[in-house]
């Protein structure tokens, strides 16, 4: 059995509580916002929640240094997928 990556139960519960509060902020704050503000709020908050989940629950806080070789190209390629589709959207809108 491995003994790595042990977090205390308290810190895990605290992380879960932060994630839950974050998730509840979406329906609490989101509907009152409009347009670009709403989009930035949704993108920003979900990015924070994804960051917390991966670092605490998926142990990237400990394993990140060992896995950068896998994760860095993945993140870059994901950004490329998003960015590659963006020009069409922007061009369509400007028409």
């Amino acid at each position, binding site marked *: *059995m*491995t*003994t790595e990556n*042990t*977090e205390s*139960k308290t810190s*895990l*519960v605290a992380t*879960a509580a932060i*994630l*839950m509060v974050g*998730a*509840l902020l*979406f*329906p609490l704050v*989101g*509907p009152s916002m409009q347009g670009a503000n*709403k*989009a930035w709020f*949704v993108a920003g*908050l*979900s990015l924070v*929640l*994804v960051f917390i*989940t*991966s670092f605490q*629950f*998926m*142990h990237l806080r400990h*394993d990140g240094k*060992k*896995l950068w*070789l*896998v*994760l860095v*190209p*993945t*993140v870059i*390629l*994901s950004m490329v*997928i*998003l960015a590659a*589709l963006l020009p*069409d*959207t922007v061009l*369509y*809108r400007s028409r």
Partner: protein
Amino acid sequence: MSQNQSTTNLPISNGKLAMWLFLATEIMFFTGMLATCMLLRESARVPGPGVAAWPNPKTVHLEPWIGAINTVILITSSLLALFSIQELRAGNPSKATRFLGATILLGVVFLGIKATEYRSKFEHGLLPGKIGECVGGLSPENEKLLLPNGVAYVRKVQEKLRSITQGVNQENFATQKEDVKKCYELLQLTLDSKDSKNDYLRPLTPGQLGDKVNELIAQYPQLHLPPAIPNGNLWASCYFALTGIHAIHVICGLVAFLVLFLAGLMGKLQNHFAALELTGLYWHFVDLVWLVIYPILYIL
């Protein structure tokens, strides 16, 4: 191979590396899906002046609070999966099995809520390729483009109205309930007819019918009439693709957890620590993906 040859392995187990490689492909897969849906949303044709290009969550019967509850359930199940791993690491397989059972239970609750949501979509006819997209205010160009969709929508609404108003006629009309009366009147408006002043009354166009049906739905949601939603079919494709693929991932995680739970009931969970840890990692990823899908579909 000589004994003193240095190794070039990563300082993590092979299983964990394999799981992360798999998750890397999954990250790119979901990014592609999300990017496509965002592109479809942003480039959706504006149907006409003052008509929304993309349906808002209320129009398509998506309740943000139900999505939030599902998110909380998934986060809690992730937490319990971590507790299960910790207990097994501490040498308490029976406690670990109990936490595993609770994780599975919450996963099933998540799927149950999703199934209820899907049922509501089926009841309202909010399915890809089945949604009427014609409403009043469409530009002439869009109205022409949507003609086949509009004709199919009129037939669908007529069919539904006929089933609601079965047995209703001019004689017993006055004795009917208010919602049935309104449906009967609307059905008459979809047909060629005449009245005391006109020899011929033109039936409603698909756009006019869409507006009337939407008004009726707002008054009597229990009728489950098919709504008219501009770009609704694109929305439905995105919704079912994203949530459906996510649900399949949840089911896969639950099956893996169930196998481990059964091993736990047979007192063999301590032999499967690595499997539990890796399934836990996968489960957190499923949780993470939902944290992105949920706000895009339910809030934006």
